[in-house]
């Protein structure tokens, strides 16, 4: 449940809405499992990172945003992009490097873009997108638009200069930005004990005088409520909000990561106790029958996305130069 530090304006979600989010999270899960499978089969080029275990953050944050709001994501971007409204076909086609991909094959897994849906890009430099979210929010403020710009990043990013400069500037200028920390406890393979001198990263936001909300990232409703509160606060001109979301990465840093740096038991334990999909399934008391039906439905969507991607168009090699300049 939400552990809200300041007075909550949580609205709560209907069971029907929660079932939609459950389906969305299951789609993310099956999509990324398929990505892993196809990568291991040698079909997908490049460097891929999946967010298995973190689906409730993507689903919860995006469920509280308006279509005009914008996000920038990280190298672990498939779930965010799906949640922001990009069709699975466009994402899968991008992973296959096809023209039908959401970045026309120019970006790949770490650079998913869908500007029409408010996805301003997955950023593969840790912390790289944060200052641009400050700037995007500055544009909304200068143009007096009721929109927010949302940055996703992990605990590793909070150690970068870009993080501190961006939060400082955003708070100084009171721009409508949300800084969503996906606190999964790992900076690639480095545990927080080795890269963080403090455990509560809200302290870092508070140091800039920024409002911070801590929330359980495995609880999609709590994430939704916290985001809704933060969004309302920001668009009203009160300034940015720091969302400290505790979540768990149930997989390696990248597909193929042997995870020599953590105990096998820990992963098994996480899957037993922290899986956001299982937690929500229990809460909504979804029957096996219903689950099977949903699973079949989303699996079909994922399978279709693979078919779509494979049938996609390979770009002309010389089109590599097409978008260097506007």
């Amino acid at each position, binding site marked *: 449940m939400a552990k809200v530090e300041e007075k909550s304006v949580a609205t709560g979600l209907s069971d029907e809405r929660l079932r939609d989010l459950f389906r969305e999270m299951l789609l993310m899960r099956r999509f990324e499992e398929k990505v892993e499978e196809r990568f291991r089969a040698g079909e997908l080029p490049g460097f891929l990172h999946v967010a298995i275990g973190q689906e409730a953050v993507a689903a919860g944050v995006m469920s509280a945003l308006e279509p005009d709001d914008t996000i920038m994501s990280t190298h672990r971007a498939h779930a965010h992009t799906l949640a922001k409204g990009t069709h699975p076909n466009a994402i899968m086609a991008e992973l296959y490097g096809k023209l039908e991909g959401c970045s026309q*094959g120019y*970006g790949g897994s770490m650079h998913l873009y869908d*500007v029409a849906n408010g996805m301003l890009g997955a950023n593969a430099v840790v912390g790289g997108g944060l200052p641009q979210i*400050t*700037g*995007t929010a500055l544009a909304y403020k200068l*143009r007096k638009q009721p929109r927010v710009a949302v940055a996703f990043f992990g605990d590793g990013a909070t150690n970068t200069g870009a993080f501190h400069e961006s939060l400082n*500037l955003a708070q100084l200028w009171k721009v409508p930005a949300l800084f969503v920390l996906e606190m999964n406890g790992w900076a690639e393979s480095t545990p927080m004990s080795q890269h963080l001198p403090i455990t509560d990263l809200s302290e870092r936001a508070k140091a800039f005088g920024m409002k911070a909300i801590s929330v359980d990232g495995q609880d999609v409703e709590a994430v939704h409520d916290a985001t809704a509160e933060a969004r309302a606060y920001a668009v009203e001109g009160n300034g940015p909000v720091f969302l400290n979301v505790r979540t768990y990465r149930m997989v390696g840093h990248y597909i193929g990561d042997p995870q020599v740096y953590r105990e096998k038991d820990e992963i098994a334990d996480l899957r037993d106790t922290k899986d956001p999909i299982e937690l929500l399934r229990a809460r909504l008391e979804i029957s096996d029958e219903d689950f099977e039906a949903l699973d079949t439905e989303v699996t079909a969507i994922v399978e279709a996305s693979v078919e779509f991607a494979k049938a996609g168009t390979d770009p002309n090699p010389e089109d590599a130069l097409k978008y260097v300049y506007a």
Partner: protein
Amino acid sequence: MPELTYREAVRDALSAAMRQDEDVFIMGEDIAEMGGSMGVTQGMLAEFGPERVRNTPISEIAIVGAGIGAAMQGMRPVVEIMYQDFLTISMEQIVNQAAKHRTMSGGQLKVPLTLRTQGGAGWSPGAQHAQQVESWFCHVPGLKVAYPSTPEDVRGLLWSSIYDDNPVIFFEHRLLYPLKGEVPEEIEPIPFGKARVMREGSDVTVIAIGRMVPEAMQAAQDAEQEGISVEVIDPRTLLPLDEEALIASVKKTTRCVTAHEAVTRGGFGAELAAVVQSGAFDYLDAPIERVGAKFAPLAFSPAMEQWAVPHAADVLEAVKRTVARA
């Protein structure tokens, strides 16, 4: 025609753009009340107010990143990095973000950002306030690079930069600010990729950049006393580069000298020399000579500083080498 200093010409272009277009705003360190470290933006706060003339914290990552964010929303921010040397701090945002968004997004995003910066030797600022780094950015696809040398060019090119849909790194030289020159009554945009023949000649072409343009003009005058006719060309923008004009000039004169204040090794002169030798090989009657600073971090003491950076005499010497006889 009215006369403006180089400094006034920069201010004139900024102010004119801001008067006609709400999307143009400026931000940087000390640019508001103080009017910038070089006095370029003096008086602009009074005319445009603090929302559009934004003093920033000392946060080069956030200044550039916020500029990129606002530019991605269609605004036309002009950010100032106080000294070229400090570009190193914002390098990630310039190189990985501003330059790459358009390609990575498959053409969905544009980054119409202008980044003004200045620097240069000649007043003993020491090694961290005088380096000339224009060549670094000419190696980055997706960026444009301008380095005008006259009041007319700085005004016309800054205007074009602001209205260019690509990120432009706009170099000014500290010693050029007080130089006066005639400018057209109305701002005439100067297209990128068009060199200016500063002076016609028949024996040697000197391709000069920034402060070395007036120095080359002096050298040309001195050479004339010795019966050598020097053509001086200022490329004005380095990326894109008016290769045709440079090659045509060298085909005419058969000899070429490049001149910039940056260190010679790996400097932009190397690129110029490569372009010229490739395009005018069968017309070259002497090896291409390069003039630049000696390969050392700039020393403080005036005698060492003056010795290390090039002057008209160095250009003259290089010119003579190209016409030398055994």
